[in-house]
C-alpha cells in the first residue's frame, strides 16, 4: 500500500527519525530532552544569581549582566523548562490514559514541539550576540522598550515563536480528549492527570493569545516605531502589564494544574486507594481555572488601579484558596486508610503537600491587597512563587517523570538515588526559599543586583545560597541516575508500580500504535477494576483490525525553521531583511506544501499485528 510503512533502520537514521516523527511518545521524549536542557540552563542562571547575592556588595556579576541573568532565569524556567517538561508528560501519558492511538493532530503536535524548540534556541542566541534580554521575565514597558541592544527583541520574537507552539499543543490536547477517548472512557472516568491537562489546555487556549498580542505590540514598539507604550506619544505602559498578566496569571495555573494531576495519579497508586472525592477534584480544577482568569490584577495592586479594583481582585484571589484547599484535603484523605508505599514518586508527592500548603498560605497573604503593598516585588514574593512553582510544579514534574519513566523508556530509575535526589533537593529548597519570606519583609526588594552592608540581610542571603547548592547537587544526582539507568538498560514490565490506570495495561514502552485493540473501559481506574474483578487485563472493545497511522513528516521542522530564520531578519532589518524573506518563504511554502499534498496516513495490517503478542502489559 505505501512505502511509508517501512520502518527505517540504522543508527544514522535515529536523528532523521526524531526530526520527522509525529508519534506522541517520541515527541514526548523530544520535549523531555529540550525541557531538561533548558532546566539545566535556567538552574545554572539561578546559581549565578545566588552566588552574586552570597555576600553584600558583591562584584561577582556586573549589574547589567545580573539583570540579563535574572531575566533569562525566569523566562527560561517558565517557558522553556516547566512548560515543555509538562508537555513531555502530557504527550507521553495522556493519549495512553484515555486509550487513544495518538493525539488528534500528530502533525500539529510535532509542529508545536519544533516551534518551542526554535523559539527557545532563538531566545538563547541572544547571549552570543551582544546581550540577553534584561527587563525581567515580565518585561514591563517602558523599561523593555528603552532597553538597549537587541536583548528584548530576542525575548519578544523568541517567545512569540515558542508561544505559537504552545497554543497548538493546547488545542491538540483539547481535541484529543474530546474526540479520541476509548469506548467507556466517559469524562467522569478520565484519570485526574488527563482532566487537569485538559483544563490546562483550555487555559492555554484563552491565555496565550493575550501574550501573543502583548509581544506583537512590544515588537512593533521596539522595531517599527509604534507608540503603544511610549508616554510621549500618548502610549500607556500599563497596557503591557494588563496584557502580560491576563496571560501570566492563567499561565501559573497552566503549570500547576498538570502537576496537581500528577500527584492525583501518584498518591492513589501508592496508597492503593482510589482518589478521595474524585468529582470534587474535577470540580475544583475547573473552578481554579475559571477563577484564574479573573484575578490577573492581583499582580498589579501597587500600580494604582484604585481601592475598588484592588478589593475586587483581592477577594477573587482569596476565593481560589477554597478549591485549592479542597484538593489538599482530598489528597490527605486519599492517604487516610490507605497502604502507603514510600516509593520515590510518592516521596515527592508527600514532600509536595506541606510545601505547597505554605505556598498557598503565602498566596492568600499576598491576596490581601493592602498587605501586598508591603509584600509586592520584595523577596517575599520571590519566596512565594518559588514555593508554588518549585514546591508544586517542579516536584510534580519529577514525581511524574520518575513515575512514568518506565512507560516512556521501559526502564526504572534507581530508587535509592531518587531518594537521595529528593532529600537533597527538598532540604536545599527550603533552605533557599523559606528565609526569603523574611528577607522580603526585612526590606529586600526583588531583582536586586546587590544589597548594602549593615542592613542585616547578610545571614539569610548566605543561608539561601547554601541551600541553592544543595538543590544543584540533587539535580546532578538525578542526571547521574538517568545516565546510569539508561546505560544499564534493564527492562521492566508494563506495570512495575502495580498501578491503576489504562497506560499501565500495555507494554513499556508501548508499541508505536499504543493499543492493539481499542480498550473497553469499565470505570474509573480501569486497570484496578480488572485487577480486582477480572483477570488483570483490559478487555478489547473491538476485534483485531487494521490500524490507521499518520505519516512522518519533516514539514513541521521546516515551518519552525522558517520562522526562526525570519526572526533574525525582522530584528536586524537593513540588509538582513533578506533573511525575513527567506524565512517566511520557507514557512509559508511548507504550509502550502502541507495544504496541497494529500497526507492520508497508512495502515498497519492485521496480519502484522497478530505476530506481536497480545498487546497487554505482560
Amino acid at each position, binding site marked *: 500500500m505505501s512505502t511509508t510503512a517501512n520502518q527505517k533502520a540504522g543508527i544514522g537514521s535515529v536523528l532523521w527519525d526524531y526530526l520527522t516523527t509525529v508519534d506522541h511518545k517520541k515527541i514526548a521524549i523530544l520535549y523531555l530532552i529540550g525541557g531538561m536542557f533548558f532546566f539545566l540552563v535556567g538552574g545554572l542562571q539561578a546559581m549565578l544569581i545566588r552566588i552574586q547575592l552570597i555576600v553584600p556588595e558583591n562584584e561577582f556579576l*556586573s549589574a547589567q549582566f545580573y539583570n540579563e541573568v535574572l531575566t533569562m532565569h525566569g523566562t527560561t524556567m517558565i517557558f522553556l523548562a516547566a512548560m515543555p517538561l509538562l508537555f513531555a508528560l502530557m504527550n507521553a501519558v495522556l493519549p495512553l490514559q484515555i486509550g487513544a492511538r495518538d493525539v488528534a493532530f500528530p502533525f500539529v503536535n510535532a509542529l508545536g514541539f519544533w516551534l518551542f524548540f526554535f523559539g527557545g534556541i532563538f531566545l538563547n542566541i541572544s547571549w552570543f550576540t551582544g546581550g540577553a534580554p534584561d527587563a525581567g521575565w515580565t518585561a*514591563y514597558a517602558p523599561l523593555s522598550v528603552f532597553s538597549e541592544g537587541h536583548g528584548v527583541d530576542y525575548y519578544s520574537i523568541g517567545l512569540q515563536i515558542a508561544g505559537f507552539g504552545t497554543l497548538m499543543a493546547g488545542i491538540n490536547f483539547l481535541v484529543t480528549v474530546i474526540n479520541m477517548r476509548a469506548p467507556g472512557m466517559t469524562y467522569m472516568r478520565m484519570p485526574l492527570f488527563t482532566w487537569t491537562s485538559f483544563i490546562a489546555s483550555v487555559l492555554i487556549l484563552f491565555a496565550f493569545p493575550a501574550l501573543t498580542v502583548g509581544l506583537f505590540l512590544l515588537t512593533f514598539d521596539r522595531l517599527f516605531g509604534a507608540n503603544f507604550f511610549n508616554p510621549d506619544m500618548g502610549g500607556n505602559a500599563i497596557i503591557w502589564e494588563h496584557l502580560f498578566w491576563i496571560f501570566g496569571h492563567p499561565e501559573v495555573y497552566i503549570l500547576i494544574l498538570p502537576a496537581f494531576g500528577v500527584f492525583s495519579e501518584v498518591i492513589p497508586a501508592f496508597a492503593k486507594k482510589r482518589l478521595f472525592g474524585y468529582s470534587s477534584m474535577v470540580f475544583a480544577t475547573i473552578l481554579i481555572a475559571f477563577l484564574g482568569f479573573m484575578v490577573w490584577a492581583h499582580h498589579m495592586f501597587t500600580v494604582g488601579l484604585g481601592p475598588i479594583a484592588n478589593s475586587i481582585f483581592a477577594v477573587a484571589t482569596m476565593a481560589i484558596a477554597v478549591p485549592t484547599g479542597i484538593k489538599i*484535603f482530598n489528597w490527605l484523605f486519599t492517604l487516610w486508610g490507605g497502604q502507603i508505599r514510600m516509593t520515590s514518586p510518592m516521596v515527592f508527592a508527600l514532600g509536595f503537600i506541606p510545601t505547597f500548603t505554605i505556598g498557598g498560605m503565602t498566596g*492568600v*497573604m499576598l491576596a490581601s491587597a493592602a498587605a501586598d503593598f508591603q509584600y509586592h516585588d520584595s523577596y517575599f514574593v520571590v519566596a512565594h512563587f518559588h514555593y508554588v512553582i518549585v514546591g508544586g510544579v517542579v516536584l510534580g514534574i519529577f514525581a511524574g517523570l520518575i513515575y512514568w519513566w518506565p512507560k516512556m523508556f521501559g526502564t526504572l530509575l534507581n530508587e535509592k538515588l531518587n531518594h537521595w535526589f529528593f532529600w537533597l533537593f527538598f532540604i536545599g529548597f527550603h533552605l533557599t526559599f523559606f528565609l526569603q519570606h523574611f528577607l522580603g519583609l526585612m*526590606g529586600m526588594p526583588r531583582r536586586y543586583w546587590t544589597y*548594602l552592608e549593615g*542592613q542585616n540581610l547578610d545571614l539569610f542571603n548566605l543561608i539561601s545560597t547554601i541551600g541553592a547548592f544543595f538543590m544543584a547537587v540533587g539535580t546532578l544526582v538525578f542526571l547521574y541516575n538517568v545516565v546510569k539507568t539508561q546505560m544499564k538498560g534493564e527492562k521492566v514490565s508494563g506495570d512495575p508500580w502495580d498501578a491503576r490506570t489504562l497506560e499501565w495495561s500495555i507494554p513499556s514502552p508501548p508499541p508505536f500504535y499504543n493499543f492493539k485493540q481499542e480498550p473497553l473501559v469499565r470505570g474509573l481506574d480501569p486497570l484496578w477494576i480488572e485487577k480486582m474483578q477480572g483477570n488483570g487485563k483490559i478487555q478489547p472493545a473491538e476485534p483485531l483490525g487494521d490500524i490507521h497511522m499518520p505519516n512522518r513528516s519533516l514539514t513541521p521542522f521546516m515551518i519552525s525553521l522558517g520562522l526562526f530564520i525570519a526572526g533574525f531578519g525582522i530584528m536586524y532589518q537593513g540588509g538582513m531583511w533578506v533573511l525575513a524573506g527567506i524565512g517566511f518563504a520557507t514557512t509559508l511554502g511548507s504550509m502550502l506544501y502541507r495544504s496541497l499534498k494529500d497526507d492520508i496516513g497508512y495502515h498497519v495490517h492485521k496480519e502484522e499485528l497478530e505476530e506481536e503478542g497480545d498487546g497487554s502489559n505482560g
Partner: protein
Amino acid sequence: MKGWMSRFKAVFALTVMALILSGCGESFLSALQPSGEGASMLLDLMILSIVIMLFVFVIVMIIYVFVIFKFRQKKGQEDIVPKQVEGSHALETLWTVIPIILLLILAVPTIQYTFALADTSPETTEEGEELDQIWVDVTGSQYWWHFEYRDLEVTTSQELYIPTDRRVNLSMISNDVIHSFWVPTIQGKMDVNPTGNKNEMYIQAEEEGVYWGKCAELCGPSHSLMDFKIVAVSPGEFEQWVEDMQSVSGEEEPESETAQAGQQVFADNCMSCHAIGSSPNKTGPNLTNFADREKLAGVFDMNEENLREWIATKGEEMKPGNSMMDAPYDLSDEEINQVMEYLMTLSPSDVTPESANNGVYEDSDLSGLFPEESEGEGSGEGEGNSDSEGNNNSESGSDSESGNNESSGNNSEGDSEGSSSENSNDNSDSNSDE
C-alpha cells in the same frame, strides 16, 4: 471593627511577634518594625493573615503526619486491599465551608485597609477640623528621587524631610521607566508610573528617624542602588527646615575662595542639570542641601573620597547606567576640588538627618507654612468657620487663589483621584501663634 481586631491581635500578637517577627531586620528598614501609621496597619493585617494561615497549616500538618505514620504499609501487608472510599459529602462540605469563613474574616479588614490607605483627604483634629495638607510631588528617575513640596517653594532630592505625626501626601510620577516607592517602615509601596498614570498615597511617621526607602520595580542596571531616605523630624524642626530651604536662592556666595571658585565651576558645568534652591529643573538631583545628605547618590557614604570618584568618573562604576554618564563636562583635578568644597558648603539648615535622632521634639501645627491662613485670622473669620464646615470650603477657595489654582491644575493631570488637594483651610488658625 477596629475593636475586635485589636482584641484578636492582643491574644496572638505577643507570642507571634515576639517569637518570629521582631528582631527581623533593622528598625530603619524592616516592615516588621513599623514606625509609621501605614506600616503599622499593614503589620496588623499581616499578623491576622499569618495567624489564620498558621491555623490552617497546623490542621493540615496534623492530618499529614498522622496519615503518614498510621497508614504506612508494613512488612507482610502487601496483599491487604484498603477500602476504596469514593468520598464524603460531609467532610468535603466541611473543608469547603470553613476556608470560606476564614477567608471572609481576612477579606473584611483587607478591604477596609485597602480603602483606608488610598485615602488622601485632609486629616482632621479631634474637634473635626481639617488640617492643612502637605503635598509633595515625587518624581522617580533612573536612579534617583526628586521631591517638590507643593506651594512651599521647596525642592530637594534623595532625602525627603517630613514632620512626624502628620500625614504627608505624595503625588508620584516617573520621568522614564516604572519605579516603585517603598519605605517599609513607614508605608507600603506604590508604583511610580510614567506620564498619564499619576499615583497618590500618604505617608506618616510616628517617630523621628531616618528611614530607608527603596525602588521596588526593576528599572535598569542600578535598580538596587536607587535608595532614598525619609528624614522624619518633629513638626517644629520641619517648619524650621522648610523656612531655611525657602531662603536659599543659589546665589549665596560661600566664604572660602576655593569654594567661590567652585561655585563658578559649578555654574559653568553643572547648573544645567543640578539646581540649587527651589527650581523646576529636575534633569539631575537638586543639591540645595547637599552637604546635609546622609548618603551620596542614595547609597554611598558621604565622604570626600566617594564624592571625588563620583564627580571624576561620573558615577560610571558606582551607579552603572546613570544618566550623569552622558554629561559633557570635563573637569581638572583642581576644579573637582573646588566644586567639592563648594558642594560641602551647601548646608542651609541646622535641621539635618541628625536632628531626627537627637531626641529634641518641637511641636507645631505647621500653619505658619501656609500663609493664606493668616489672612483668615486677620479678618477674624477663623473661629466662625470652624463651626460650619460647608461654609469653610467656599471661603477658603476664594481666599487662596494661587494655591488652589495650582493644586487643581495638578489634579486634572492625575487621572482619577478626584478632589484630593483641598489644601487651604482656615480651621487651624486658632493655634497658629505657637
